[in-house]
Protein backbone atom coordinates (compact mmCIF):
# COMPACT_ATOMS: atom_id res chain seq x y z
CA UNK A 1 0.00 0.00 0.00
CA UNK A 2 1.15 3.50 -0.79
CA UNK A 3 2.32 5.61 2.13
CA UNK A 4 0.25 8.58 3.23
CA UNK A 5 2.47 11.23 1.66
CA UNK A 6 2.24 9.51 -1.73
CA UNK A 7 -1.55 9.35 -1.43
CA UNK A 8 -1.67 13.05 -0.64
CA UNK A 9 0.56 13.89 -3.59
CA UNK A 10 -1.52 11.76 -5.92
CA UNK A 11 -4.68 13.43 -4.65
CA UNK A 12 -3.20 16.90 -5.20
CA UNK A 13 -2.01 16.05 -8.69
CA UNK A 14 -5.50 16.64 -10.16
CA UNK A 15 -6.80 20.19 -10.85
CA UNK A 16 -10.44 19.28 -10.14
CA UNK A 17 -9.50 17.89 -6.74
CA UNK A 18 -7.47 20.99 -5.93
CA UNK A 19 -10.44 23.14 -6.88
CA UNK A 20 -12.64 21.07 -4.58
CA UNK A 21 -10.20 21.61 -1.72
CA UNK A 22 -10.09 25.32 -2.48
CA UNK A 23 -13.89 25.45 -2.26
CA UNK A 24 -13.87 23.49 1.02
CA UNK A 25 -11.33 25.87 2.51
CA UNK A 26 -14.23 28.35 2.60
CA UNK A 27 -16.46 25.97 4.54
CA UNK A 28 -18.46 22.72 4.43
CA UNK A 29 -20.30 21.80 1.26
CA UNK A 30 -22.50 19.01 -0.04
CA UNK A 31 -21.63 16.91 -3.06
CA UNK A 32 -24.21 18.82 -5.12
CA UNK A 33 -22.74 22.16 -4.13
CA UNK A 34 -19.24 20.93 -4.89
CA UNK A 35 -20.24 19.57 -8.29
CA UNK A 36 -21.93 22.78 -9.45
CA UNK A 37 -18.89 24.59 -10.93
CA UNK A 38 -17.67 21.52 -12.84
CA UNK A 39 -18.82 20.27 -16.25
CA UNK A 40 -18.65 16.65 -15.06
CA UNK A 41 -21.13 14.22 -13.59
CA UNK A 42 -21.97 13.81 -9.91
CA UNK A 43 -20.47 10.33 -10.17
CA UNK A 44 -17.16 11.80 -11.33
CA UNK A 45 -17.16 14.26 -8.44
CA UNK A 46 -17.94 11.40 -6.05
CA UNK A 47 -14.88 9.55 -7.33
CA UNK A 48 -12.72 12.62 -6.73
CA UNK A 49 -14.15 12.92 -3.22
CA UNK A 50 -13.27 9.28 -2.52
CA UNK A 51 -9.66 9.95 -3.51
CA UNK A 52 -9.54 13.03 -1.26
CA UNK A 53 -11.14 11.10 1.59
CA UNK A 54 -8.67 8.22 1.26
CA UNK A 55 -5.79 10.71 1.39
CA UNK A 56 -7.25 12.13 4.59
CA UNK A 57 -7.76 15.55 3.06
CA UNK A 58 -11.52 15.65 3.60
CA UNK A 59 -13.94 14.29 6.16
CA UNK A 60 -17.52 13.37 5.25
CA UNK A 61 -20.61 13.36 7.43
CA UNK A 62 -22.10 10.03 8.61
CA UNK A 63 -25.66 10.51 7.35
CA UNK A 64 -26.08 8.84 3.97
CA UNK A 65 -28.65 11.37 2.76
CA UNK A 66 -26.79 14.42 3.90
CA UNK A 67 -23.05 14.03 3.77
CA UNK A 68 -21.40 17.44 3.84
CA UNK A 69 -17.67 17.46 3.10
CA UNK A 70 -15.16 19.25 5.27
CA UNK A 71 -11.49 20.03 4.62
CA UNK A 72 -8.94 18.41 6.94
CA UNK A 73 -5.78 20.51 6.57
CA UNK A 74 -3.53 18.14 8.56
CA UNK A 75 -2.10 16.17 5.58
CA UNK A 76 -1.52 19.47 3.75
CA UNK A 77 0.55 20.68 6.68
CA UNK A 78 2.57 17.48 6.44
CA UNK A 79 3.18 18.08 2.72
CA UNK A 80 4.02 21.73 3.32
CA UNK A 81 6.56 20.77 5.98
CA UNK A 82 8.11 18.19 3.71
CA UNK A 83 8.24 20.50 0.69
CA UNK A 84 9.74 23.27 2.77
CA UNK A 85 12.55 20.94 3.85
CA UNK A 86 13.18 19.96 0.27
CA UNK A 87 13.15 23.50 -1.05
CA UNK A 88 15.56 24.58 1.66
CA UNK A 89 17.87 21.68 0.80
CA UNK A 90 18.39 22.89 -2.78
CA UNK A 91 18.16 26.58 -1.99
CA UNK A 92 20.95 26.15 0.56
CA UNK A 93 23.09 24.29 -1.93
CA UNK A 94 22.67 26.95 -4.60
CA UNK A 95 23.05 29.81 -2.14
CA UNK A 96 26.38 28.27 -1.09
CA UNK A 97 27.34 28.02 -4.76
CA UNK A 98 26.42 31.72 -5.23
CA UNK A 99 28.67 32.70 -2.34
CA UNK A 100 31.51 30.51 -3.51
CA UNK A 101 31.32 31.81 -7.09
CA UNK A 102 31.44 35.37 -5.77
CA UNK A 103 34.54 34.52 -3.72
CA UNK A 104 36.20 32.97 -6.77
CA UNK A 105 35.47 36.02 -8.89
CA UNK A 106 36.71 38.39 -6.21
CA UNK A 107 39.94 36.41 -5.97
CA UNK A 108 40.49 36.41 -9.72
CA UNK A 109 39.77 40.15 -10.03
CA UNK A 110 42.90 42.31 -10.53
CA UNK A 111 44.60 42.55 -7.16
CA UNK A 112 44.73 45.94 -5.52
CA UNK A 113 47.88 47.23 -3.90
CA UNK A 114 47.63 47.17 -0.14
CA UNK A 115 50.02 49.09 2.04
Amino acid at each position, binding site marked *: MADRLSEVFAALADPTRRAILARLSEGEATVNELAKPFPVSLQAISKHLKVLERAGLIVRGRDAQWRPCRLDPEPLREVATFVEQYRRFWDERYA*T*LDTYLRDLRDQSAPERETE
Partner: protein
Amino acid sequence: MMTEQLTVDRMSDTELVMTRVVDAPRELVWACHTRAEHLRRWWGRGNPLDVEIDFRVGGKYRYVEHAADGNAYAFRGEFLEIEAPSRLVQTFEFEGMPGHVATDSLVLTEENGRTTLTTTSRFTTKDDLDGMVSSGMADGAQRSYVALDALLRELSA
Protein backbone atom coordinates in the same frame (compact mmCIF):
# COMPACT_ATOMS: atom_id res chain seq x y z
CA MET B 1 23.06 40.24 -4.04
CA MET B 2 19.64 39.13 -5.22
CA THR B 3 18.90 35.47 -4.69
CA GLU B 4 17.72 33.78 -7.85
CA GLN B 5 14.56 31.70 -7.94
CA LEU B 6 14.84 27.93 -8.04
CA THR B 7 12.18 26.33 -10.19
CA VAL B 8 11.24 22.66 -10.20
CA ASP B 9 8.89 20.91 -12.58
CA ARG B 10 7.67 17.36 -12.77
CA MET B 11 7.64 16.51 -16.48
CA SER B 12 6.34 12.95 -16.21
CA ASP B 13 6.18 10.08 -13.74
CA THR B 14 9.92 9.54 -14.07
CA GLU B 15 11.37 12.90 -15.08
CA LEU B 16 12.06 16.08 -13.13
CA VAL B 17 13.56 19.36 -14.30
CA MET B 18 15.17 21.94 -12.03
CA THR B 19 16.37 25.37 -13.18
CA ARG B 20 18.46 28.03 -11.45
CA VAL B 21 20.50 31.05 -12.61
CA VAL B 22 23.87 31.95 -11.05
CA ASP B 23 25.86 35.13 -11.49
CA ALA B 24 29.04 33.71 -13.04
CA PRO B 25 30.39 32.64 -16.44
CA ARG B 26 29.78 29.05 -17.33
CA GLU B 27 33.45 27.93 -17.36
CA LEU B 28 33.54 28.76 -13.67
CA VAL B 29 30.22 27.01 -12.98
CA TRP B 30 31.50 23.99 -14.89
CA ALA B 31 34.66 23.90 -12.80
CA CYS B 32 32.53 24.06 -9.65
CA HIS B 33 30.72 20.90 -10.73
CA THR B 34 33.73 18.91 -11.87
CA ARG B 35 36.69 19.61 -9.56
CA ALA B 36 37.07 18.33 -6.02
CA GLU B 37 38.49 21.55 -4.55
CA HIS B 38 35.39 23.41 -5.75
CA LEU B 39 32.77 20.74 -4.96
CA ARG B 40 34.07 20.57 -1.41
CA ARG B 41 33.19 24.23 -0.92
CA TRP B 42 29.52 24.25 -1.93
CA TRP B 43 27.92 20.88 -2.62
CA GLY B 44 27.62 20.12 1.10
CA ARG B 45 25.59 23.30 1.66
CA GLY B 46 28.04 24.50 4.24
CA ASN B 47 28.48 21.02 5.77
CA PRO B 48 31.89 19.35 5.52
CA LEU B 49 32.03 17.25 2.35
CA ASP B 50 34.38 14.39 1.44
CA VAL B 51 34.94 14.25 -2.31
CA GLU B 52 36.35 11.35 -4.31
CA ILE B 53 36.14 12.08 -8.00
CA ASP B 54 37.63 10.52 -11.11
CA PHE B 55 36.44 12.99 -13.70
CA ARG B 56 36.37 11.18 -17.03
CA VAL B 57 33.74 9.22 -18.96
CA GLY B 58 33.33 5.96 -17.08
CA GLY B 59 34.92 7.48 -13.97
CA LYS B 60 33.17 7.38 -10.60
CA TYR B 61 32.51 9.85 -7.82
CA ARG B 62 31.49 9.63 -4.19
CA TYR B 63 30.49 12.59 -2.02
CA VAL B 64 29.87 12.25 1.72
CA GLU B 65 28.11 15.12 3.46
CA HIS B 66 28.62 15.37 7.22
CA ALA B 67 25.42 16.94 8.52
CA ALA B 68 25.15 19.02 11.67
CA ASP B 69 22.99 16.28 13.26
CA GLY B 70 26.03 13.99 13.27
CA ASN B 71 24.83 11.83 10.38
CA ALA B 72 26.78 11.29 7.18
CA TYR B 73 24.93 11.12 3.85
CA ALA B 74 26.78 9.47 0.98
CA PHE B 75 26.05 9.87 -2.74
CA ARG B 76 27.80 8.10 -5.59
CA GLY B 77 27.67 7.75 -9.34
CA GLU B 78 29.45 7.47 -12.66
CA PHE B 79 30.15 10.04 -15.38
CA LEU B 80 28.44 9.05 -18.63
CA GLU B 81 28.91 12.05 -20.93
CA ILE B 82 31.25 15.02 -20.63
CA GLU B 83 31.08 17.97 -23.02
CA ALA B 84 32.98 20.81 -21.32
CA PRO B 85 31.72 23.37 -20.45
CA SER B 86 28.13 22.85 -21.46
CA ARG B 87 26.83 19.36 -20.76
CA LEU B 88 27.43 16.73 -18.09
CA VAL B 89 25.54 13.46 -17.69
CA GLN B 90 26.07 11.34 -14.61
CA THR B 91 24.29 8.72 -12.55
CA PHE B 92 23.20 9.60 -9.03
CA GLU B 93 22.57 7.18 -6.20
CA PHE B 94 21.88 7.90 -2.55
CA GLU B 95 23.64 5.19 -0.58
CA GLY B 96 20.75 5.22 1.90
CA MET B 97 18.60 3.85 -0.95
CA PRO B 98 21.01 1.62 -2.85
CA GLY B 99 19.97 0.31 -6.25
CA HIS B 100 17.71 3.25 -7.06
CA VAL B 101 19.84 5.01 -9.63
CA ALA B 102 18.81 8.24 -11.33
CA THR B 103 20.48 9.77 -14.39
CA ASP B 104 21.09 13.50 -14.14
CA SER B 105 21.81 15.68 -17.18
CA LEU B 106 23.20 19.11 -16.39
CA VAL B 107 23.13 21.72 -19.17
CA LEU B 108 24.85 25.09 -18.72
CA THR B 109 24.00 28.09 -20.91
CA GLU B 110 25.55 31.52 -20.56
CA GLU B 111 24.10 34.93 -21.28
CA ASN B 112 25.69 38.26 -20.34
CA GLY B 113 28.09 36.56 -17.97
CA ARG B 114 25.30 34.74 -16.11
CA THR B 115 24.75 31.00 -16.32
CA THR B 116 21.51 29.04 -16.35
CA LEU B 117 21.75 25.54 -14.85
CA THR B 118 19.15 23.08 -16.09
CA THR B 119 19.19 19.66 -14.46
CA THR B 120 17.00 16.88 -15.80
CA SER B 121 16.71 13.86 -13.49
CA ARG B 122 15.49 10.62 -14.99
CA PHE B 123 14.41 7.80 -12.74
CA THR B 124 14.11 4.21 -13.86
CA THR B 125 10.58 3.83 -12.54
CA LYS B 126 7.81 5.93 -11.05
CA ASP B 127 8.34 4.00 -7.81
CA ASP B 128 11.96 5.15 -7.72
CA LEU B 129 10.90 8.74 -8.05
CA ASP B 130 8.20 8.34 -5.43
CA GLY B 131 10.69 6.52 -3.23
CA MET B 132 13.02 9.49 -3.38
CA VAL B 133 10.11 11.71 -2.43
CA SER B 134 9.12 9.65 0.58
CA SER B 135 12.75 9.18 1.64
CA GLY B 136 12.83 12.90 2.29
CA MET B 137 15.93 13.25 0.19
CA ALA B 138 16.45 15.89 -2.41
CA ASP B 139 15.81 14.49 -5.86
CA GLY B 140 12.25 13.59 -6.56
CA ALA B 141 10.39 15.87 -4.22
CA GLN B 142 9.57 18.20 -7.10
CA ARG B 143 6.37 16.27 -7.55
CA SER B 144 5.02 17.54 -4.28
CA TYR B 145 6.39 21.00 -4.92
CA VAL B 146 4.47 21.36 -8.17
CA ALA B 147 1.26 19.98 -6.73
CA LEU B 148 1.44 22.07 -3.59
CA ASP B 149 2.43 25.19 -5.47
CA ALA B 150 -0.61 24.88 -7.70
CA LEU B 151 -2.84 24.24 -4.70
CA LEU B 152 -1.52 27.20 -2.74
CA ARG B 153 -2.00 29.45 -5.77
CA GLU B 154 -5.62 28.33 -6.01
CA LEU B 155 -6.24 28.59 -2.29
CA SER B 156 -4.88 32.12 -2.15
CA ALA B 157 -6.62 33.26 -5.34
